[in-house]
């Protein structure tokens, strides 16, 4: 099977800081991959390089066999890379419906039918359990629902790769359980890359985990292997559980 996404020698420097340092990374289609690491390890910078929010200093990004290193972010989105923001950034003044209509109408740009947009929007809202709140302004939704709306907007793009940046931050335990089910559901037809601080969530969801530390990949493996890895325990888990 050919990988969906690979990076080779990917680096990004901010002044003297090597936020991402010579990273070789491979993602297979259909995976749920977890990315963990201490604060400042370069996780968000790394996924920002993948989705094109920032451009690399050196290195390449290949997606589905094509070099996308120089592509602007919106073209990567059109190729199937969706990114949901770490800090909730729904369009607060627009209704939940309009928030999701934006990605749907973009994806259906060849279709002129209002009905197909409506069904696309309601489909994404139903999957995230927000259908009955479609007409509410997004800014008036509860925080947990805003996070779900963010995911619905990503889903509405029907991405091949969905990047979730700390999606469970600020959610209650009950909401987190629903969220895990939702991500499993999404992963049936998309590859999922998830940055997450909540260890139980990553351990449950991810098939494989990549550990970042100081801009480099420290370790990679199944949740079981990562838990057993002494270097990871030193760099990260140790400080959490110690």
């Amino acid at each position, binding site marked *: 099977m050919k990988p969906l996404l690979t990076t080779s020698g990917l680096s990004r420097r901010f002044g003297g800081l090597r936020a991402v340092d010579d990273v070789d990374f491979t993602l297979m289609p259909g995976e749920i991959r977890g990315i963990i690491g201490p604060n400042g390890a370069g996780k968000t910078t790394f996924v920002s390089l993948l*989705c094109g*929010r920032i451009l690399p200093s050196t290195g390449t990004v290949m997606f589905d066999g094509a070099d996308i290193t120089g592509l*602007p*972010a*919106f073209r990567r*989105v*059109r190729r199937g890379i*969706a*990114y949901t*923001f770490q800090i909730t*950034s*729904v*369009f*607060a*003044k*627009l*209704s939940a*419906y*309009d928030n999701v*209509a*934006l*990605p749907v*109408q*973009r*994806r259906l740009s060849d279709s002129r039918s209002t009905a197909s*947009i409506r069904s696309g929007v309601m489909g994404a809202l139903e999957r995230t359990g927000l259908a009955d709140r479609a*007409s509410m302004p997004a800014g008036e939704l509860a925080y947990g629902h805003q996070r779900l709306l963010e995911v619905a*907007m990503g889903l509405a*793009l029907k991405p091949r790769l969905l990047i979730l940046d700390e999606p469970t931050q600020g959610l209650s335990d009950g909401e987190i359980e629903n969220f895990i089910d939702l991500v499993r559901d999404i992963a049936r037809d998309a590859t999922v890359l998830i940055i997450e601080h909540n260890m139980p969530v990553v351990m449950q969801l991810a098939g494989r985990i990549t550990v970042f530390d100081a801009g480099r990949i420290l370790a990679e493996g199944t949740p079981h292997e990562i838990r057993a890895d002494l270097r990871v325990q030193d760099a990260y888990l140790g400080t959490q559980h110690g």
Partner: protein
Amino acid sequence: MRDIAPARFYALHLAVIAVLFALNFLLPAYHHGLMARILVLAVFAMGYNMLFGYAGLLSLGHSMFFAAGLYGAGLAVVHLGWGAPPAFAAGLACGAVLSLVIGLLSLRTSGVAFMIVTMMFAQVFYLAILYFAPWTGGDQGLVVPRQARVLTIGDQPFDLADPQVRYLTALALFAAVLLACLALVRSRYGRVLVAIRENEERTTMLGYDTFSNKLAAVVVSGTICAAAGAAYALLFGYVGSNFAGVQYSILPLLWVLVGGAATTLGPLLGTLTMYYVIDVASGYTTAYLLVVGVVLILLVLFFPKGILGSVRQRWLGWLP
């Protein structure tokens, strides 16, 4: 909010147009003439509102687009001897081309830099008008000859300088632009513009090329403003460099803010309000700008989102 029948929006706007049509027969001569001018300038304000209200781009150089239409139409009549319809089209074309070029250059910036760059380009445009005085009339301006200001429909010539014809022509342009703006802001493109205004980076990450969308907004806005300028030249017969000055970049911003940014009817309301405040105040005192200042302060205090913006916020959430 998308579930409200579109009929309601169109009914409201058609009612406004009908009232303006009725005013043609009711207004005394002085107010009739003033209102024709207000309708044309409201078109200018609507063009400004497309960019400022909906796309969230604050330009301080929109006088150049108005003046592009004004001079495009005026110079075509004066130097090329064109009739009113082709001259109007020339004005529109000048506005479209100018806004495309200015958009391509100035959208490389954003925020305060965008304001400064657009203002700078407008100053260049203004100074160019003064520099090419042999053609443009410099700071004296040009009078558009009356025999050219005729619109022939079928075999029937209509004299655009005639108050009735002038008012109804201004109203026709206003109505066309108003309905076009309404359709535009309720369209998918309108939704994208608002998304860019609210959070440009998020819009990019939904797969939108925000630069192209903003460029289209500049061109639509610039072309509407040029339509107002071209109509002004043909209806009122004067083409002057003062319309290219800084004042005419600030005025549409003021009209839109007073009426309510990102509302379809706000530009008309704002233009009307400001014109009549100045008109009434200057009848009582030479210090009428003081009155204008007080009115603006009261507006900021009690209607911070403009008249219609505050009405929408407090009572009528469905207003487009």
